[in-house]
């Protein structure tokens, strides 16, 4: 019997027993996710980034790269005093209309930034948790990074 079969049997028993229902906050967060839909946006998928060898501090910046056709979004996250600082760069595609606009989104808030001529942007003091970066360019579909959970990323890869 596979691990999956066992888990599904236990899940079915748990549903039937009516014990351990989904907390209201979980249900509310799921429903609130509707507001995060970006119709027509292209999802930039994570790609591996080489990291320097050796020990690192959790407070050191960590680079994450997301790629879509004609767009790359680099997102560097730094944990500071229980908050997240975001620094990044957008590259790729035509820039005739300028570098466009960046929106850094969490589940409940968004921070708008206008990238420099080199595509750099930054925001500080964001709450720890789910985060996505969206790049809006004139005449092109928005490009949104996959959602990442910064609460867990600080423990990843080590």
């Amino acid at each position, binding site marked *: 019997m596979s691990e999956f079969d066992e888990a599904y049997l*236990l899940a079915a028993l*748990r549903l039937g027993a009516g014990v351990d229902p989904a907390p209201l906050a979980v249900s509310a967060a799921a429903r609130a996710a*509707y507001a995060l839909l970006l119709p027509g946006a292209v999802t930039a998928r994570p790609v591996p980034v080489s990291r320097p060898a050796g020990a690192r501090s959790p407070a050191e910046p960590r680079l994450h790269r997301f790629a879509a056709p004609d767009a790359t979004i680099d997102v560097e996250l730094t944990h500071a005093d229980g908050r997240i600082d975001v620094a990044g760069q957008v590259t790729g595609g035509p820039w005739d209309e300028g570098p466009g606009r960046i929106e850094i989104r969490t589940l409940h808030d968004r921070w708008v930034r206008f990238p420099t001529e080199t595509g750099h942007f930054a925001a500080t003091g964001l709450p720890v948790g789910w985060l996505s970066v969206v790049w809006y360019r004139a005449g092109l579909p928005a490009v949104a990074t996959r959602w990442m959970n910064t609460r867990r990323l600080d423990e990843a890869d080590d």
Partner: protein
Amino acid sequence: MIDKETLPRLPVDQAEWNALEAEFGPRMWAVARAFGLSAADAADAVQAAWLRLVESIDRIRDPARIGAWLVTTTRHEALLLCRKGRAVTPTHSPPEPGEADAGDPALAVLSADEARRLWRAVDALDEPCRTLLRLLVTAPESGYARIAARLGLPIGSVGPMRGRCLGRLRKLVEAER
């Protein structure tokens, strides 16, 4: 049953999205918890699945599979949390929207009818399986140590016995069919 979809099309407004959550949210939670995740980890696995839907909804071509895809994606996210401890890299990929199989027999157990059938089968099991499964279901965070103490078993035997008991349960249910 998941194959009796009540939402044959993609949700187009908040009300339909809420209906989708009402239909599948409890199953997603139960799946995450069945992998032994804490409440906090299960909440992250479930939320991750909804966010993957946010990212993928434009690529879903068969709305009848959306519920199965949500459950499969929750399982995927739960497994990642199980296998990496608390850490999740952003480089993993969720299942593709076309990959979820609404006819997956494992998904079929996540229904009220099947749950009633399963509980009748649990009642028909011998000890210690009957008590072990009840404890696993009703007190998922009690841990193997407490379950072992309650049943008077060595702690190392709880995991293997869990597998044997679930295997017996499945055979009982299949024999009933």
